């Protein structure tokens, strides 16, 4: 077989990496290239350098080192028994590509993952080698996200954290039984054990920096994980529960959800209809509610329907409000911040503006309208000086009044 060109390898190994949802480049330590020998900076806010027609941001060069893999996970396009084209980059090729793209301002940095070749340790060493060359030989100060392999030696994973801004380990599936069935070579306890180790390293490095100014940083953007939605029978309640346990136990920055999507040469153990993309969106909304709106996992679970899934036609916040109508209406001139955050249609920013403005005036409905995106959605749940929703919150058809008009949710529905 003729030697593959870099272009051919890039096509194969970027294509193979696109099922990883995360492309975040935010929340890491501030650094820049002044006084250094190379290039690169991270200033807190992530930057999306382009958007693909799938609506996803392209912030990092997201590729696999290789898509050869000795594992056989059924949802994965790169599994051993899959019949896809294979390719393999050398660490130096990845380094050259990253720097060439970075110099032209195409990317914020690198997100490197890999199929397992030879052994977990060998693969992890190769991943770390890419980061080492970038950081040590080129003094690269851009963003690096390394996917770590739970089966690898913790010492190598620790190395990864010293070079990277973020490390991640995928839990892959929300339930252990799903993992056993669809990722037979993986082990839930091993994955969580590895996450626990990374958490311990994070805590230790943070602690050391408090005492010694020049203690090495360890993954300043923390660790994250990803779960595949819709590949097994887990309900949204299961998923939310799992995510919140992960947040608590491993201090994760983010749990990403990836709606299972058809992959080329799919395994037949996944004889599923594609879950609607909106399901992934609803899970992200519930994630937001827990992270920024003070909802507890149990609150989100209360918003699910009888089958344990969040409604698809309305967002989880509205779903919760419709179930707990006795909590409304909320008086915008008197209610606490926590109460206001529960009002459907009021975001964190709008609540902040209401709290600031009401010190200066008694808010009327028109004032609230100026501070929010859509007053129609908010109106049934609030009181203002000149507004009281007398019947709305008791109406049985409130849901249909507020639900967005039925749109074509699935783009390619037959």
């Amino acid at each position: 077989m003729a030697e593959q060109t870099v272009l051919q390898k890039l096509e194969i190994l970027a294509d193979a990496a696109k099922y990883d949802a995360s492309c975040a480049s935010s929340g890491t330590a501030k650094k820049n290239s002044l006084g250094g020998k190379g290039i690169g900076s991270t200033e807190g806010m992530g930057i999306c350098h382009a958007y693909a027609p799938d609506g996803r941001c392209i912030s990092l060069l997201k590729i696999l080192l290789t898509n050869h893999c000795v594992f056989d996970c059924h949802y994965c396009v790169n599994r051993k028994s899959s019949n896809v084209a294979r390719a393999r980059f050398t660490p130096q090729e990845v380094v050259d590509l990253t720097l060439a793209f970075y110099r032209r301002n195409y990317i914020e940095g690198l997100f490197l993952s890999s199929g397992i070749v030879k052994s977990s340790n060998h693969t992890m060493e190769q991943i770390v080698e890419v980061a080492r060359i970038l950081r040590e030989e080129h003094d690269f100060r851009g963003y690096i996200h390394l996917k770590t392999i739970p089966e690898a030696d913790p010492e190598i994973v620790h190395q990864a954290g010293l070079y990277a801004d973020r490390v991640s380990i995928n839990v892959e599936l929300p339930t252990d039984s799903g993992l056993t069935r669809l990722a037979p070579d993986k082990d839930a306890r091993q994955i969580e054990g590895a996450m626990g180790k990374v958490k311990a390293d994070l805590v230790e490095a943070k602690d050391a920096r408090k005492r010694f100014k020049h203690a090495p940083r360890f993954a300043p953007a923390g660790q994250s994980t990803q779960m595949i939605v819709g590949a097994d029978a887990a309900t949204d309640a299961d998923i939310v529960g799992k995510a919140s346990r992960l947040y608590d136990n491993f201090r994760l920055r983010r749990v990403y959800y990836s709606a299972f999507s058809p992959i080329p040469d799919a395994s037949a153990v996944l004889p599923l209809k594609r879950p609607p993309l909106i399901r992934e969106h609803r899970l992200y909304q519930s994630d937001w509610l827990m992270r920024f709106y003070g909802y507890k996992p149990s609150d989100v679970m209360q918003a699910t329907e009888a089958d344990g899934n969040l409604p698809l036609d309305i967002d989880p916040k509205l779903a919760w409000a419709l179930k707990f109508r006795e909590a409304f209406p909320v008086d915008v001139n008197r209610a606490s911040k926590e109460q206001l955050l529960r009002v459907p249609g009021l975001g964190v920013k709008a609540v902040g503006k209401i709290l600031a403005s009401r010190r200066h005036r008694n808010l009327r409905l028109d004032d609230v309208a100026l501070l929010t995106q859509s007053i129609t959605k908010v109106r049934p749940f609030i009181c203002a000086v000149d507004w009281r929703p007398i019947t709305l919150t008791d109406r049985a058809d409130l849901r249909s009044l507020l639900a967005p008009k039925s749109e074509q949710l699935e783009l390619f529905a037959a």
Partner: protein
Amino acid sequence: MTALQHVKLGTYYVVHLPEADDFDFWRERARSLVQCDVPPDRIAWVEPGGSGDLFAHGERRMPVPPMDAKPVRANRRFVSLARNAILHSDPERFALLYRLLWRLQSNPRMMEDKADLDVRRVEELDKNVRRDSHKMHAFVRFRLVEIEDEEVGEHYVAWFEPEHHILRANAGFFMRRFSNMRWSILTPRGSLHWDTETMSEGPPAERHDAPGGDPMEDLWRSYYASIFNPARLKIGAMLKEMPKKYWKNMPEAALIPDLIAGAQGREAKMVEKGALEFEERPDTLAAIDKAIHACRKCPIGQLDNHAVMGEGPQDAALMIVGEQPGDQEDQMGRPFVGPAGQLLDAHLEKVGIDRRAAYVTNAVKHFKYVQRGKRRLHQNPGAKEIDTCRWWIESERAIVKPKLVLAMGASAARGLLGKTVSISKVRGAPIPLEDGSELWVTAHPSYLLRLDGSAREEQARLFDADLAAVRERLEELA
């Protein structure tokens, strides 16, 4: 009213700003005018290139604030907003900021009143400018210009068209990021040049001043096309964050129309290639029987053969799973009737398992073979073929609900577990399955058929031992 001594009543002041983004100049003038008590509607602010002629009769000399003028008050929030909002291209921005500053003197906490129209407007300007800056950080695309002179090395040049006066304000961002790289950013409002040590400003530029391409763009475009997932088209989300106005200076954007047009076709092809579209699970054995005869989801199903359905009681406690039908099974349409089946029957009888009480089936439903003259030679199914057929064995399990599944051979074990295991390592002990039943694994009887002498005796002994363990376990479970 001391201030009035310094201000001619009814005078209309005209302030010409030296630069469109000169916040410090504006602040200086605004401070004096507030101290002299000049109301907002008596001032015209004119930026370079603005229509100053309308105010030809205005007073250009600034009034001098009285010695005892009160200091001008402005909180930090106002200053940070104003510093950014002044970069906006709206010609009204100077007047708006002055009006706010004027009103702040009597109402120092006004900036908190988010429902105030002036406050809302300045926040809107600030937001637009921040967005424009952010998009500049994101969408500037450098192109490499090779320079003959070895000393100078590489030079990266970008052409960008910002909406607001943000170029100078963002010089620092690019300097901090690309501090060891020679670069220039050219825009219609001016240009920036960095030589790894000092920043210099240049005059407005035109598109053709910048290079027309860069060989690296082919790689970037191919990355852009490959990372896009055609199964999840969300054009609106893309347009919201990357409006069309930016596309003309982004090399990858030229691909977008074709990617969108091809997406549906690509997804359909992926699904077809993956044979992913199984129907609903059949809920009777008869329905499975019918469906497997029509199954062409893997290459084995496309050979000249017949599907062979499992047989046995629908409520059997034991399910015995083999690899696939052989030549005779294929012809007779029943599992385990050939030489391996006869051997199996003999061993079952020996340890006391009644085959008629068990549900007997195969991991793969069709016979895989290669034609050699008139003979059809058995071929092992591939991992993918076994995985494809797993759908059917799972459907059978869902209906029969056996308490114990006996998988004979590595293929059968894979059909149940989804992974390839070593028989010698897993035989002799139960493996729990997710529905609560348990799996036992042993060798396939055809393996015994291929052995001779003492090896065969040894394997037959192990096979009997496995079967005997299964029988005992079944009695425990009963």
